[in-house]
C-alpha cells in the first residue's frame, strides 16, 4: 500500500486544507526520498508545493507561468533519475499542459507525480477559466496514467504517500482547500484502485469521488433516518484503474446506482462506472450526476455544488428519484456471476 515508514501524526485536518496537507506530506517524503524534486509554475504558494521549496530549496524549481515547459522539464528530470512532483491548477495541468503530460510523461511512462489542485469547481468565484470540469475525462484516456481524486485532506495524505509505490505517472486531483473532513483518521486501509465503503447499504449504491463523498455520506444518513432507505456509499477515489469488483458487487447487491462528481457528466467517474456496468451485461437503474454538459456558473464552491445538485440535497433528491426508476432485471443473474 503506502510507502510505510513515513510517520507523522494526524495533522489537525479540520484546520488544514487538502493543499496544506499535501505540502506537509511532500516535505515528509522529501526527507525520505532525496530524489523527489518539486516543480511549480508561479503557483508555489497556491498549490502549497512552496512548503517543499522552503525546506528543500535546491530541489525546487519554478518555471514561471509556463506550464507546457514545466511538464516537459518534469519528463526530463524523471529521465535523469529524479522523481518530480509537478503542481499546478487542475485546469492547467489537464488542458494547458495536456500534450506534454500525454506525450512526454505518459507515453514515455515516466515516474512523475502530478498534483492538480483547485479541481472541479472548487475555485468558485474565480470562474470557469479556473474550474476544471473536464480534466478527469481528458487524463483518464492517457495510457499508463493512474488517476486519483481524494475525498479529503487525510485521503490526500494517503494518496500522496501511496503514489511513491508506483513507478510511473500518477495524477492526483485535489481541491482548493476548505473542503470538510470525511475521514476520522488516515487508518482506513487506503489502497490505490480499491473503493472504500463509507456507509453500508442494500437498497441503492451511491458512488462518489472527491468532494462529493462527504455529501453522499451525509445524504445516506439522512435517507436512512427519513426514508428508511439503506444507501451504500462507495468512495471511488481512484478513477483509473477503476474498482470493477466493487461496482459489479454494488450492481448485484443493490441494482440501483447513482454516481456523483464535481466534473462534467461526460467522461469522468460516471462514465467510467457506466462502462463497467454496460460491459457486465447486468440490468440496473443508473444515473450520472455531475455538472451538466455546459460551462460552470460563478459562485462560492458550496453554491456551485448545490446548483449542480451534487451536494447533500442533490444526492438525496437523486437517490429518491432512482428508487422509483424502472429497469429490466436480469432474472438469470446467479448463473452468470
Amino acid at each position, binding site marked *: 500500500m503506502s510507502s510505510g515508514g513515513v510517520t507523522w501524526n494526524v495533522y489537525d485536518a479540520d484546520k488544514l486544507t487538502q493543499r496544506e496537507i499535501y505540502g506537509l506530506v511532500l516535505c515528509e517524503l522529501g526527507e525520505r526520498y532525496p530524489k523527489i524534486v518539486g516543480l511549480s509554475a508561479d503557483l508555489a504558494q497556491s498549490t502549497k508545493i512552496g512548503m517543499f521549496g522552503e525546506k528543500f530549496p535546491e530541489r525546487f524549481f519554478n518555471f514561471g507561468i509556463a506550464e*507546457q*515547459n514545466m511538464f516537459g*522539464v518534469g*519528463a*526530463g528530470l524523471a*529521465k*535523469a533519475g529524479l522523481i518530480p512532483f509537478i503542481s499546478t491548477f487542475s485546469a492547467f495541468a489537464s488542458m494547458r499542459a495536456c500534450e506534454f503530460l500525454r506525450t512526454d510523461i505518459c507515453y514515455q511512462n515516466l515516474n512523475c507525480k502530478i498534483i492538480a489542485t483547485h479541481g472541479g469547481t472548487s475555485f468558485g468565484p474565480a470562474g470557469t477559466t479556473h474550474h476544471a470540469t473536464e480534466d478527469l475525462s481528458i487524463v483518464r484516456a492517457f495510457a499508463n496514467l493512474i488517476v486519483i481524486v481524494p475525498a479529503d485532506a487525510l485521503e490526500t495524505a494517503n494518496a500522496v504517500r501511496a503514489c511513491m509505490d508506483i513507478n510511473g505517472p500518477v495524477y492526483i486531483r485535489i481541491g482548493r482547500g476548505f473542503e470538510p473532513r470525511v475521514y476520522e483518521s488516515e487508518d482506513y486501509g487506503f489502497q490505490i484502485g480499491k473503493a472504500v465503503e463509507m456507509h453500508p447499504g442494500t437498497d441503492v449504491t451511491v458512488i462518489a469521488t472527491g468532494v462529493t463523498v462527504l455529501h453522499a455520506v451525509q445524504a445516506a444518513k439522512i435517507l436512512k433516518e427519513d426514508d428508511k432507505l439503506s444507501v451504500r456509499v462507495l468512495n471511488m477515489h481512484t478513477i483509473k484503474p477503476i474498482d470493477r469488483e466493487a461496482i459489479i458487487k454494488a450492481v448485484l447487491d443493490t441494482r440501483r446506482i447513482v454516481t456523483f462528481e464535481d466534473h462534467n457528466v461526460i467522461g469522468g467517474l460516471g462514465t467510467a462506472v457506466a462502462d463497467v456496468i454496460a460491459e457486465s451485461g447486468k440490468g440496473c437503474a443508473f444515473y450520472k450526476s455531475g455538472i451538466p454538459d455546459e460551462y460552470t456558473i460563478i459562485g462560492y464552491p458550496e453554491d456551485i455544488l448545490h446548483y449542480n445538485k451534487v451536494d447533500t440535497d442533490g444526492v438525496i433528491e437523486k437517490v429518491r428519484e432512482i428508487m422509483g426508476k424502472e429497469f429490466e432485471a436480469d432474472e438469470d443473474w446467479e448463473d452468470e456471476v
Partner: protein
Amino acid sequence: MAITDQEIAELKQLARKVREDIIDVTGWSGGTHIGGSLSMVEIVTSLYWKYLRIQPHNPHWEDRDRFVLSKGHGGVGHAVVLALKGYFPPEQLRDFNKSGSAFGMHLDCNKVPGVDCSTGSMGHGLPMAVGLSLGARLLKKEWRTYCVMGDGECDEGSIWEAAMSAAHYKLDNLLGFVDRNGLMIDGPTEKVMALEPFVDKWTAFGWKALPIDGHDFRQLAQAIDFALEHKGQPVVVIAKTVKGKGVEFMENKAAWHYGGLNAELVEKAKRGLGDAS
C-alpha cells in the same frame, strides 16, 4: 578538442554513408522526412562520432551524454546513425514504417535502443533537454545534454518557454542546435512565420548564439568546443543548412520535407552524393 584534417576527412565519409542509408531507408520504407534528415547530417555526425560520450553496447549507461532530437521528424536520420554506431543491427531498419515495427517516423525511446527521448510533436524536446540538464546538475553528474531543434519548430511557444528557463537556470551543460534549413512544410520560414532576427532572439533569451555553416565540420567543431568551455549560460548553434542537402533534386525544396523514392530515384539520389560535404 580541436579537429584535425584527418578527422574531417573521416567525418565526411561517415556523413556520406549516413546520407546513403537515409536514402535507402526512404526507398524501402515508402517515405520519410528526408529533407530535414539530410540537412542535419553533419550536426549529428559530429556529435555521434566526435563528441558524445556513449556506449552503444550499453545504451542505458548512466553517465552517457544525452541526445534529444527535438525535431523528432528527423527520426530516419537519427535511426541510421544509431544503426551505424552499433545500437542495433542495421538490418532492423528494413522494418522502418512497417506494421508492428519498432521504427516509425518519430522514434520511440522505449522501442529503439539509443533514443533518449521520444519526440515527434514539435516543441517538446528542448523542455525535456532542460529537465535532463537540470537533473544532471542536481545529481552532480558530468554528462551533458545535446538537443537538435528544427527552425520551423521554433515557432512553438514551448521552445521559448524552455529557452527562458535554460538561461534562468544558467544551464551551461546544455548545448542546443537549430537546423536552420529555412524551410518548413508550407514554405520558407520567413514567409510562413518569420524567425529573423533569429540569432538576436536567442541572444535576447539569454543564450550564447553561434551562427555557423551547419555543413562545415570545422565550424561545427569550433562551435561545440567553444560551448564545452563556456560557463554560466547555455549555448545554441544556429546551423545554417540546406534542406535535402546532398541530393540535388531535393535541395532547398520544401516539397521534400517528406517523400518517398522509387528505385530509380534512389540511384539518382545516391549518384549525386559525391561531394555532399
